[in-house]
Structure formats: structure tokens, C-alpha cells
């Protein structure tokens, strides 16, 4: 169990690090879109989260295995 958790966490952290390092490129390609990142690359994108999740599930990709982010030039203040 612990090894599985570590592998999942390390994979997500690598994807987060990759996203931070390539944020401006991703922003240029996917402004105002949801993007799924897995294995340090974008694997799907869509205007809405519903569309993105539908696409991933259609391709037999479990959405929880990907890092999903909404990418936008507009900053969101919570």
C-alpha cells in the first residue's frame, strides 16, 4: 500500500513540477481550458471539466490518475 501511495504521489509531484516549469507554454496553448497532465505531458484538454472527464473516460483513462488543472490568463482570487 505504502509503495503504491508513494508512486502515485511522486508521479503527481513530477507533473506539478513539470507544469510549473512549462506554465507559460501551457498557458499559450490552452488558455481558458481544462488540461489533464500525466507523465509530464498534456494528454487531453477541453473547454469544460465535464467534456474533459467524458473524453478521459471514453479513452479508458481514470481521471484520478491525471493532474487536472484549469489554465487561464485571468487570475482567480478566492
Amino acid at each position: 500500500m505504502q509503495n503504491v501511495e508513494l508512486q502515485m504521489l511522486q508521479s503527481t509531484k513530477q507533473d506539478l513540477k513539470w507544469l510549473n516549469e512549462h506554465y507559460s507554454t501551457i498557458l499559450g496553448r490552452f488558455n481558458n481550458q481544462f488540461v489533464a497532465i500525466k507523465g509530464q505531458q498534456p494528454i487531453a484538454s477541453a473547454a469544460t471539466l465535464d467534456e474533459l472527464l467524458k473524453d478521459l473516460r471514453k479513452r479508458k483513462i481514470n481521471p484520478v490518475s491525471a493532474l487536472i488543472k484549469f489554465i487561464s490568463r485571468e487570475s482567480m482570487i478566492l
Partner: protein
Amino acid sequence: MKIPLQLVNEQVEVAAILRAAKQRIGLANVNFVVDTGSNKSFLGYGTILQLNMPVTGLQFAEHTRIGGCTFKMFKLSGVTLSFEDEKRDIFRIKPNNMHVVVPTKKGEERENATRIPSILGLDFLKETKMALCVNPAKGTAYFELG
């Protein structure tokens, strides 16, 4: 003990593994934004959709507004969060104050609600007795316990 955090687009983020037996979530990646300006920790609506997590039967806590959207906030009990510490060991926490948020409206506001991330707030730090250390200029951030 330290838990390294990530800085992504000038937000402090942490990767976690969520287990929620009552919701039949075995092991799921969840990414949180660490926001000490929030007094509540919650799974965002986008995360709920991503996990396909049922919210029926959860205890209603309150109505709240986040990022211009109105939500019903429900208490999420019996969850475990796992983090990776600086020694690459797993650190598990069973937070008592985790919530989920569900938008009250459909249409455009629901779409906007899916963009709001999951949050670990000040309540999480208080409950777990962890300190948050951030140095944006150096690009370093971590939780510290003890």
C-alpha cells in the same frame, strides 16, 4: 518532519492521496492549494466530479461563497490524507474538519465552480499542528511538524 510543497503559478500546492471508505474512494490523487486565508478545508466541486464522489448522505454544514459562486458545504468524515515527507516516507492524517462544496446553481455559475480548487486552509494547519513555511523568492515551501 517536513512535507515539501510545490509552487505552481505562484500558488502553494500539495499532492495528497485521499481515501474515503464511506464514499468508496480507495486511493485517489488529490491536489490541494494551501490557502491560509481560508478558514475551511474542502474538496472543490471539480475534484468531486473528477473522483465521481457521491455527496448524498453527507451532513450539511453551511452555505458559503467562494470565488463568486455560492455553495452548499457538507462535512466529509472518515477520510485519510497521505503525504510524502522529505525522507520519502508516507505521512497519514485523518482530518476531522474536511468538507466538500457543491454549487447551488446550474449553468454558468456551476461551470465557474468547477474551476475552484480543493483547499487546505488554516483549520487544517491548526488541527494537525503543522506550520507552513514559504519562501516564494527561493521557490521553496513546506509543512513542518514538531
